[in-house]
Structure formats: C-alpha cells, structure tokens
C-alpha cells in the first residue's frame, strides 16, 4: 500500500508538472521575413527554452515595422520586432506598445557612395543625387543628417529608387549616393571593393535605436512573469548566438521556410525596415 501511495504521489507530481508546462500560446511578429538578426528566436525555440518556461511560441513573418508595431500595439500579437522610431510614432497614434529590449543598439542607417564619383564624405554630398524609396527613414530624417553634417538640407536631390535597385542605381550612376542598412554592408563591399565609401549615421552623432523587442502594454501588465521569462530567454539566446553563430544559423534555416530564410539570411536587405 505504501508503494502504491508513493506511486500515486509521483504520478500526481508528474501530472501537475505536465499541466504546469502545458504552455501559454504567444506569438511574435517579426519586422520582416526571417533573417540572421532573427535567428536567436529560432535557436531558443529549437533548444526548447521557451517551451521549458511554459511559453508556446509561434513566430509570424512580418511586413515592416509599421505593421508589427501596430499589430502589437492593438493586441493582435503580444510580442514583436520593430524599429524603435516607428514604434514611437505608432504609440503617438494610440498603439499600446512598449519596448523591452534593444536588438540594434546602434542605428543601421548608412550612406554609401563610390569614391570614383568624387565623393569622400558628407561635405561632398552637396549637389548630388541620393537614391532611396520615398518613405525611407534616411530621407525623412535627412534634415537632421544635413544639420549634423553642416550642409544645407536642400543641397541634395532625392531620386526614387526601390530597395532592391539601389546598388544597380549606384553602379550606373543614376544616383551618386544611396542609403541602406549597415547589415548589408558586405554585399556592397563585395560588389564595389575599395571604391565603396560609407558613413554610418552614428559616426556623425545621430544614433537612434533600431530594431527592438516590443510587447503589448496590456499583455505586459497581465503577464509580468511570462514577459520577463520571454525577455530573459531571448536575451540568453542572443548572447549564445554572439558567442557562436553556427547553431543559430542552422536553427534559422531549419525552422523557416527554406526559400524565405535562405534568401534573407545573408543579405539583410530589409532586416531593419
């Protein structure tokens, strides 16, 4: 009877543990398609870290920070990745979103040019054409850059160039300067070699936070423990990937639709949008 009693207690413990780890379903909306900077989420998920904390995480592909900040801000997803400036704008429009962790502590905004065009720095931007999409953050924020660089805001002209056509436009001299994100720096370096010139906005004193982990404010209020667990697991995953990226890349490629992840893992063309 004593043995039966112990067995019953053990069963009850196992059962209660299993219930405790049933997992609360939560979703994370990315800012874009899965890319290298998202790999720690896939790595932590593959390691079972979220699951062990009772978090049943699903990761949703995003369509820009505007969409992710509004979806999180409306409660459509508890967690998301968003450029912080975009989240601030969304919050001013009523989105209930709160930033919990910076991923890009430094701005990815960077200007690129070819030295053979006679450009060696921002002073040489005067009278030149800069190519980027109409709503590009670097175009919107251009007056701030011009002020920091000591040039007139109207000293340059902007040409509409789509995200995927920027390098071609620079190569054919349709424009002489383009704006892009720093994490795709090596693609340009490979294409243009030593002729490539660049300036990250941080180097001129403009260093806004970039992509960050955000949460719905009401969800945070109702689920403080889960939110803390989610943040700390994510933080641990990023630290692990900083130490060794190989398993994180594998997790990204294994857990994402192959065509999407592979085409984005090494380009980062849109990973800061």
């Amino acid at each position, binding site marked *: 009877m004593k043995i039966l009693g112990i067995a019953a207690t053990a069963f009850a413990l196992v059962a209660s543990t299993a219930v405790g780890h049933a997992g609360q379903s939560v979703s994370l909306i990315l800012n874009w398609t899965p890319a290298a900077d998202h790999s720690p989420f896939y790595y932590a998920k593959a390691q079972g870290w979220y699951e062990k904390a009772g978090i049943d995480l699903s990761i949703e592909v995003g369509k820009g920070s505007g969409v992710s900040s509004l979806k999180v801000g409306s409660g459509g997803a508890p967690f998301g990745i968003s450029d912080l400036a975009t*989240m601030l704008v969304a919050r001013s429009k009523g989105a209930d979103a709160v930033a919990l962790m910076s991923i890009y502590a430094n701005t990815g905004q960077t200007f690129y040019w070819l030295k053979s065009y006679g450009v060696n720095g921002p002073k040489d931007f005067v009278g030149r054409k800069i190519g980027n999409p109409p709503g590009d953050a670097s175009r919107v924020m251009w007056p701030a850059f011009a002020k920091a660089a000591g040039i007139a805001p109207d000293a340059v002209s902007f040409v509409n160039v789509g995200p995927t056509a920027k390098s071609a436009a620079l190569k054919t001299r349709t424009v002489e300067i383009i704006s892009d994100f720093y994490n795709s720096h090596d693609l340009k370096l490979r294409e243009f070699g030593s002729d490539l010139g660049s300036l990250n906005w941080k180097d001129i004193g403009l260093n806004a936070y970039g992509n960050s982990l955000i949460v719905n404010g009401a969800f945070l209020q109702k689920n403080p423990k889960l939110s803390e667990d989610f943040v700390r697991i994510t933080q641990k995953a*990023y630290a692990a990937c900083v130490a060794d990226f190989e398993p994180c890349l594998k997790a990204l490629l294994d857990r994402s639709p192959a065509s999407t992840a592979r085409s984005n893992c090494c380009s980062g063309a849109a990973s800061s949008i």
Partner: protein
Amino acid sequence: MLQWGRIKYLMADEFTTTRGLGWIDAGRMQKDYELVQTYLGMEKPFAVESAFTSRLLDPTIKMDASKVPK
C-alpha cells in the same frame, strides 16, 4: 557569417556591454523621442519613459564586446 558580424556591431553600445544585452537607456530614448517628434511628428505626445523598460532584462547577460569584429 559576415552579416552576423555587422549585426554584432549594431548590438554593442556602452550600455549593452555594461548594463545588460539589450539595455535601453533613458537618455538615448529621450533624444530619439525628440528626433522623431521633430522629423516624423507625434500625433499625441506622451511621456517617453512609458514607452520602454529595461527592468525585465537579466543584468548578468551582457553583450560581449570582444566578439564584435574590429
């Protein structure tokens, strides 16, 4: 792999390397708020400190600056 090196550069600042990976600094946030207000516009202004918190981060996990490519 090269791209991840650039990402590590973007992850490292004086706060993430000393106070906790992912740390969001109040002073930097205030500057960002002012920048956004000036150039993008805030439909309804709010207290910037209501828009972020670093209190959920584990301060023992820091961004390893030695892993950032020079």
